[in-house]
């Protein structure tokens, strides 16, 4: 039994342990933030989700690069699954961010919240990624075009962030700001637990989904070879 087969379950176990611990501590143990009060605790789920989404997009771009480099189609499903995970976690970032904005400032959306705006742009971009995959027939061509677009995406992340920061000079005055939490060591510890757990969860889901996609592909190929 190779190590590869066990990755999904292994990461799922790690995710389970770390997330249970992190969420329990986030609710019951961690000190309440002086400025923001209880609502600051959303930070323990929102920011790890954002970091995980970035990691997924980066992983997808890495696999895309490998595909273009080696011309080995196996990377296509890996890149696709990673981007899919990134979008799922990205949606979570937007929703938890909206909830946090609502409780902090009474509005469901704030253009002043850079992270949120960035994820909105990325969400648009990666939705277009899926439209692209849907409008090209399966095969090496679809794989290559998706890979190129995934690379554009990962380059877009820092450029967009810079653009959003620059745009605050003239678009919306940053009415609502949130000071970076002056984190006590305990807060940082729970944050790290949550981040590791969330990344482990994404990895576990990634491996399960990847196996499913690979199986699907093999079945399609078998079916084609019969007809």
């Amino acid at each position, binding site marked *: 039994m190779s190590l590869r087969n066990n990755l999904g379950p292994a990461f799922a176990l790690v995710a389970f342990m770390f997330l249970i611990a992190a969420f329990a501590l986030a609710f019951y143990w961690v000190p309440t933030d002086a400025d923001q009060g209880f609502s600051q*605790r*959303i930070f323990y*789920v929102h920011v790890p989700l954002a970091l995980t989404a970035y990691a997924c997009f980066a992983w997808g771009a890495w696999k895309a690069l490998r595909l273009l480099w080696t011309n080995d189609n196996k990377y296509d499903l890996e890149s696709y699954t990673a981007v899919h995970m990134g979008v799922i976690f990205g949606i979570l970032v937007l929703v*938890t961010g909206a909830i946090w904005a609502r409780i902090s400032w009474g509005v469901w959306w704030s253009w002043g919240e850079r992270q949120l705006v960035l994820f909105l742009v990325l969400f648009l971009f990666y939705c277009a990624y899926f439209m692209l995959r849907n409008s090209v027939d399966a095969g090496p061509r679809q794989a290559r075009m998706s890979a190129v677009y995934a690379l554009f995406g990962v380059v877009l992340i820092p450029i967009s962030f810079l653009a959003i920061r620059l745009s605050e000079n003239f678009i919306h005055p940053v009415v609502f700001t949130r000071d970076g939490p002056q984190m006590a060591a305990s807060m940082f510890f729970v944050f790290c637990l949550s981040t590791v757990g969330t990344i482990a969860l994404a990895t576990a889901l990634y491996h399960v989904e990847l196996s*499913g996609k690979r*199986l699907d592909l093999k079945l399609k*190929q078998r079916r084609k*070879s019969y007809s």
Partner: protein
Amino acid sequence: MTTAEVYVTAAFLVFLAVVLAWLVVYAFKMRRLEREVEEMAAADPEPGQNPDVPKVVPAGDADANAERASRAPEPVS
């Protein structure tokens, strides 16, 4: 429960909800895949006979499957 507690709990629950939704979608997909595998096995009970068809390997060995998938020649349609 104070308003803040409601919203914080909502945020964590949304996380759980999305993961569970993923699980539901995947459970259905797995059921469909299993059905297709059974159909395929019924149609061709002895995979050894057809030399063009790659040997059936237990689905769990995803890595070997992927290797084989990428190296197998594209079926001529």
